[in-house]
């Protein structure tokens, strides 16, 4: 165990409007290179490398309060018509039933050579799309879609995974090439990535108009037919009503009840069956499917982000990031800094003797090991662990020293060097940092 993360905030004593944040981006413990033999025991250096940001108190408060930017919130691109719920950058967008053409290739995308022709037209029931808009942490949008048998009435409504192909069971659309097409469109300014309407229409249109394949198998439609949910069936011939409709529309289909029928043929037949259904029959199938014990989803669960999973460290990172990205003119990159703590060869040897790695300090010059780096570094880490409180206190004092210097306007890189022995010998030194070995 050793120090893994260091983060620090300080407000200026003389000017309360100024703050600095320090963040360690690398913390390492290394055995110093031995001149004689790299397998020898040698001194160790503990080094913390960090960066700094200076900003105003108002930037800090604004980031904490997460104040709304009313101008951008209220005058950006308008939302699509049927946004039914919003949380942060996640939007639930509802769409009433519509008819769409099915262009289905009975193969995986990699084997598709030409665009499939239109197989049939089907009624898509009410859909609820969960669009996650791009953010600074998440560059591309993502889209989940679910079917419903009517308009949403509550966050508790049960939704089901769509029957069309290229959906994961979680409702996530397999975007495939769409993701890179989207990024291209953004680069060419033909899509505004901040417009919910444009992003939604781009993704949904691409899904419904781009043709489907069997990359993720046939999807739930097979289940509907296998379990004869609603009027879905594997055998149209056995349903006189459907058979009559097919005959009337002169729709041809293959008999897939034989064991040797190909899967892609079965799926195409399932779509033909779907195309024979009117809207009320499709909506009824959604209701009946939902009543089975198959997976279904609730909007509130889809929106329920586990905020508790975010640690204090991530919260600090997020806060500093939002200050940095606030576009405030007072936010500036401050100088880099480092804290170096030297563990002398004598200290390392004494620790190795104490730990019975070495029998005595006398024989150390003759001791060689291919593990010498690890032995020395582990010895230094044990020393840190055994003096954790004192060590932390010293690091804090060093951070305070650096931050005060930056708040006073220094733009030079800040460096503090100290010998571990001095930290141990003079506990007060960790508080005052007024020893001879400090180099700034």
């Amino acid at each position, binding site marked *: 165990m050793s*120090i893994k993360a260091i983060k620090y905030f300080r*407000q200026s004593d003389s000017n309360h409007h100024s703050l600095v944040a320090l963040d360690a981006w690398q913390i390492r413990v290394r055995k110093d290179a031995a001149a004689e033999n790299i397998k020898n025991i040698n001194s160790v250096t503990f080094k913390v490398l960090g960066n700094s940001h200076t900003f105003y*108190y108002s930037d800090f408060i604004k980031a*904490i309060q*997460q104040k709304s930017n009313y101008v951008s919130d*209220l*005058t950006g691109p308008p939302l699509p018509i049927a946004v039914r719920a*919003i949380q942060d950058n996640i939007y639930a967008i509802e769409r009433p039933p519509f008819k769409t053409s099915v262009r289905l290739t009975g193969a995986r995308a990699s084997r598709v050579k030409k665009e499939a022709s239109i197989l049939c037209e089907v009624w898509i029931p009410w859909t609820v799309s969960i669009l996650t808009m791009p953010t600074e942490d998440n560059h591309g949008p993502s889209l989940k879609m679910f079917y419903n048998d009517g308009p949403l009435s509550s966050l508790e409504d049960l939704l089901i995974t769509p029957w069309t192909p290229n959906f994961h069971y979680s409702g996530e659309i397999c975007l495939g090439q769409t993701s890179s097409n989207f990024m291209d469109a953004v680069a060419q300014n033909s899509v505004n990535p901040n417009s919910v309407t444009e992003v939604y229409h781009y993704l949904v249109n691409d899904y419904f108009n781009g043709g489907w394949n069997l990359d993720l198998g046939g999807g739930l439609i097979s289940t509907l037919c296998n379990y004869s949910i609603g009027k879905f069936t594997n055998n149209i011939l056995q349903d006189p009503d459907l058979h009559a409709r097919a005959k009337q529309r002169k729709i041809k289909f293959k008999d897939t009840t034989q064991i040797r029928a190909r899967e892609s043929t079965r799926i195409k037949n399932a779509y033909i069956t779907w195309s024979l259904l009117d809207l009320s029959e499709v909506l009824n199938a959604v209701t009946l499917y939902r009543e089975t014990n198959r997976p279904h989803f609730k909007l509130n669960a889809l929106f329920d982000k586990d905020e508790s999973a975010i640690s204090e*460290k991530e919260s600090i990172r997020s806060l500093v990031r939002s200050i940095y990205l606030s576009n405030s003119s007072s936010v500036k990159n401050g100088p880099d800094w480092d804290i170096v703590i030297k563990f002398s060869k004598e200290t390392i040897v004494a620790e190795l003797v104490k730990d019975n790695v070495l029998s005595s300090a006398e024989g150390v010059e003759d001791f060689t090991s291919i593990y010498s780096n690890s032995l020395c570094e582990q010895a230094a880490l044990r020393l840190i662990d055994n003096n954790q409180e004192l060590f932390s206190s010293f690091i804090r004092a060093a951070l305070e020293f650096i931050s005060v210097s930056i708040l006073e306007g220094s733009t030079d890189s800040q460096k503090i060097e100290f010998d571990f022995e001095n930290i141990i010998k003079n506990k007060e030194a960790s508080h005052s940092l007024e020893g001879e070995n400090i180099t700034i």
Partner: protein
Amino acid sequence: MITKFKYSYISYDDEHRWNEDPLVDLSLSYNSHQIDYSTSMSDKLNKEKGFIKSLLANNKQKLISDIVPPAIKYRSNGVVVFERPPSYQVVQYAPQNVSNLDDDTPIHVYRIPIPWQLYVITYNPDKYYCNSVRMYFMKSSLHSPEQTVYMPPIPNFFTNGLLCRPMYDSMEDVDGYSKDLSGVIASAYDWIWNSGFNHDLTENFYHVVRQKKPVEILSLYNRLQEVNSSGYFRGITPTHLKAILESWEKIDLNNILDLDWPNPSLTQSFEEDRNYYFEHDPERFDLDTDYEDSIESIDTADLYKESQTYRQMIHAFLCDSDSPDTGSQSVDKSFLEAFNSFNNS
């Protein structure tokens, strides 16, 4: 204001979501209202806790709490903008100002066709009370912030679309809505369409006459004696107002989108707009703010001719007295809550 704020976070564990609580060394101190707060810990930190984590969580804005009706065009903390398509609306008009209303005041009922409407609502984001309601007319659904919006010539509205807040007899009328955005929208809608209208604000009708928009609802009005526009209520008497509503009633809903509606003001009256332009948008009238006087610089007639986009109305709204209260807690209170949470971790 928080002063002397210092916070150090030193972690002795790699932190992953699947990890145990990390071993940390934390030190926090600050001053608030002349009181020094200081604490430190060197122990396992409960992953659910942390000072900055609490600060952020306490201030987190939950923008939307439940299913909302369709046609929300924008939302921000304490503000929602939604639209409604053309429809017939019932206007119950009492031809008296509020102080003269009594049980004998007759109620005139009109069923008028109205074009697309855009509602800008401010509300308390913690308690979901409606604070203010603005309404504009539009010729189509809002598809861009650059779209022109119009003044609704309905009583009890200021010329900038702000509704004069209705008075209610009981708390139930105010508080009886669901405590979510749907409740805010329902209450805003009721404020306008289900609370009745009186003769309190008639400036909008004067602008129908003055701007001659829409002329189609002036047919009966034109037969009346001309108004004294400098008089009280701009000369719009209940007779004038009823004549306009009566003509309006005769228009078919199918033709409502063909009508031209009056330009709105940006502030509560066109005359006040001069100061707004002077302060916030001098380029609009090519104003030289160093040398010109706001009163002399723009002719009133020019103010009436100025059409306004949705974006321009929102910019003016954000400068107005009903500009949204963020409802944020004070920073000192947030610090204290996070401090207590930190101490209990």
